[in-house]
């Protein structure tokens, strides 16, 4: 199934668009999304260790604007946001 990940902060550099689409097995969890995303990054930007680090240190939010944990299950057409380490003010 496909899921859409909206990009924020440093993760915006992952794409020229403001989201990524990943194809993941159904059902899938945040943990698997993260692994899938890291594979994607490694394939697309093999030289960029920093991007991988960002994915490792990011949280994810669901459509209800809740931060969701590794075990959180996704259904088809789920939308996520990637929340890299924050620092406003």
């Amino acid at each position, binding site marked *: 199934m496909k899921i859409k990940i909206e990009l*924020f*902060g440093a993760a915006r550099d992952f794409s020229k668009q403001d989201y990524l689409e990943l194809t993941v097995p159904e059902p899938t969890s*945040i943990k698997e999304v993260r692994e899938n995303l890291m594979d994607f990054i490694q394939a697309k930007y093999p030289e960029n260790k920093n991007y991988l680090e960002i994915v*490792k240190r990011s949280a994810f*939010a669901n459509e209800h604007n809740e931060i969701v944990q590794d075990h959180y299950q996704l259904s088809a057409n789920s939308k996520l*946001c990637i*929340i890299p380490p924050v*620092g*406003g*003010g």
Partner: protein
Amino acid sequence: MFHGKVIDASKQSISLDEAKKFITSEQCGASLFFIGTVRNHNNNKKVTGITYDSHDAIVEKSFKEIYEEAIHKLTIDHPSVYIEHAKGYLGLGGISIIIAVAAKHRSQVYELSRYIIEEIKKRTPIWKKEHYNDHQSDWLKGNPVHDLSK
């Protein structure tokens, strides 16, 4: 009383006066206004401006949560809180954040204001991209919201 909002810097600017009007109350003897501004140096680089990125919905939700936590944890009489954070590009001196609080006593406004800014730094989904005088730019390192890599 609470107000928390993300402000699109291309359309509006953050106003100290608006914040003052909102929090002013005859029950309160003390007000404190924290303002964050874009400064011209960071980590020995000459900064020309900052672009702020924001997940608006979660930012505004987090402002509300932080406010509610603060007045639950701290003892504040007649708290009034106004928080705004800019998104988009700001040049030098531009106001990125205002946290205005009023309460009965001065110790209360200092505690409340400090609590709010520290929590925002820790967990509100806002990001900074600094622009330098050599035309380079960099996303600043931040705090993981939930460190899931552990």
